């Protein structure tokens, strides 16, 4: 008979490896978010920042376009009052978005921003945005929702225009 080797140490190591890989997959979620922020995958913009007074770079003008979408069955009217703005890097501007709940039920919306090209996302700095919070709107209510933003003067020269899209989701059931 072959000498009987104890398989348990190796077995436990392998089970541990399996468990670690399972956890690793969940760790991919925050890793991915960080990665997106650094590389601009999917054009996720950052959260609220304090208005810092930046040097205005008047040598450049960048066009910022706005697009609005309603997701799935979201019945609200949702649009931007200006289709685009031209601004110098560092210059602070306000853009107004308009939302109206035409239904006869109270609803909650959530808007998700996305920027294209994605590498530009990290240079859009918002000091105020409706997208930071839920948007509750009573039946029939309307609201003008401002975004105050500026472009980081560090924005690379090759970016000449940016598109900022807001998609409005209905999250009444969740909140």
């Amino acid at each position: 008979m072959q000498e009987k080797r104890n398989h348990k140490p190796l077995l436990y190591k392998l089970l541990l490896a399996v468990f670690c890989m399972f956890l690793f997959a969940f760790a991919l979620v925050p890793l991915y978010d960080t990665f997106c922020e650094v590389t601009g995958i999917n054009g996720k913009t950052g959260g609220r920042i304090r208005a810092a007074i930046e040097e205005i770079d008047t040598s450049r003008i960048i066009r910022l376009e706005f697009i609005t979408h309603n997701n799935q069955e979201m019945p609200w009217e949702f649009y931007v009052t200006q289709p685009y703005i031209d601004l110098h890097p560092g210059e602070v501007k306000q853009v107004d978005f308009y939302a109206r709940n035409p239904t006869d039920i109270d609803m909650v919306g959530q808007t998700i921003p996305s920027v294209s090209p994605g590498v530009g996302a990290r240079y859009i700095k918002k000091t105020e945005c409706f997208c930071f919070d839920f948007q509750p709107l009573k039946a029939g209510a309307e609201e003008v929702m401002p975004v105050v933003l500026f472009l980081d003067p560090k924005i690379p020269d090759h970016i000449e225009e940016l598109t900022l899209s807001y998609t409005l989701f209905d999250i009444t059931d969740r909140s």
Partner: protein
Amino acid sequence: MGDHHHGPAKGLSRWLLTTNHKDIGTLYLWFAFIMFLVGGAFAMVIRMELFQPGNQLVSPNTFNQLTTMHGLIMVFGAIMPAFTGFANWLIPMMVGAPDMALPRMNNWSFWILPFAFAILLSSWFMDGGAPNFGWTFYAPLSTQGPPSTDFFILSVHMMGISSIMGAINVIVTIFNMRAPGMTLMKMPIFCWSWLITAFLLIAVMPILAAAVTMLLTDRNFGTSFFDAAGGGDPVLFQHIFWFFGHPEVYIMILPAFGIVSEILPTFTRKRLFGRVSMIYAIVAIAGLSFIVWAHHMFTTGMPVIAGLFFMYATMLIAVPTGVKIFNWAATIFRGALTFETPMLFALGFVFLFTIGGFSGLMLALIPADIQYHDTYFVVAHFHYVLVSGALFSIFAGAYYWLPKWTGTMYNETLGKFHFWLSAISFNITFFPMHFMGLAGMPRRIPDYALQFADFNRISSIGSFVFGLSQLLFLYIIIQAIRGKGKKATDEVWDDHPRGLEWTLSSPPAYHTFETPPSEKLVEEHH
């Protein structure tokens, strides 16, 4: 322990309670074959619907369910269990061990599978029908999928657990149970290919488990991993899925490399050329598989720099893969060739897998991939790799070791007939798909524009022949198992094939290598 040295138990309990690696190998192989027929039947319906433009046979929703189930069953039910079956039968015999290291776990890892697939297949009869979002189950289509999606998730979990247990068993067996004198570098290349495969399984099956878990909580418990409204991201799903999915592709092809590398030397009567670089190539391919996942996602929009990285890394895979193909060619060069059925399938593998490799290189180039992505060109590519690659190697291996396992030679004439029918009909089925894809036909569509009609008809006819030829394979195998045929010698093949399995009787005793083979024998057969 009393009946330890006797034969198997009688009746059903032999199979339910068995811890014998040969029995479990047999179970895996039969299970894989049954699933292959089920998945194949789905493919036949798909090809019937696509025989001509218009909606003839099944509704678009049923069509999507068929493509989803075909993919899932072929990947998780046919190819993977078939390779695990080979591993169970062969690894102990090849490394001179009495059995797998963890025989009771081995029993579990098999018996989970029938239940997993019973659950998956039962989803056809559930409210809302079977999963219909493709085997890749991209979010948010799958988060909005039918109620049966939750059962699909359970079933994927069970398949994953089964694969992980199988992989652990292979690693422990290879590390702890090799006969004295068999160093890792002297170990047969099939065992090497499976060792690397097992590590890949351990690394990525938990990732798949996590992906379906996130899907489950997104669907039922209000999380939003993949839902933009809650701060999630549907593209994240694709990253996680393909982080599993690309190594998974190699899980389905590395054992095939191993089988072909065992077969070619026997029928060329030469040693495998560049054995060491073959092993390194397997390791390199496995390593690269972790950094190329996003080449499945070139149209999702990624920064140029990320695109370039994944494109270059993907192109690099061509190097070790090329080495393998050149080494097989060099093995064949100046041999003394005979063309028994296993050799025919192995040669078919080398030719047709290479074509799949070529289209793989084309797909790696992002600008061209923008046109190929999600078209029939991709369908052609992965069927060249998985059917004429993985499946042909399974056929080759089955013919190669069947006489050893059963003690009876299969019918050589019918075997050759099976090969030629399969190889020709395979090409009739899948080669035109390259043209369809290039001409602009998207994949996963139940109906198509008129300019694709001719190629689709050709492809459908080919697929029906291919499907029917596999019944011939079933017949050949049953005949051999029933002992209808010439008695196989212990060495089975002429001119002393290498490998410890050929030193055993045909069929081998129920328990083999209870006394390990001598170092001299190991040395002779390395």
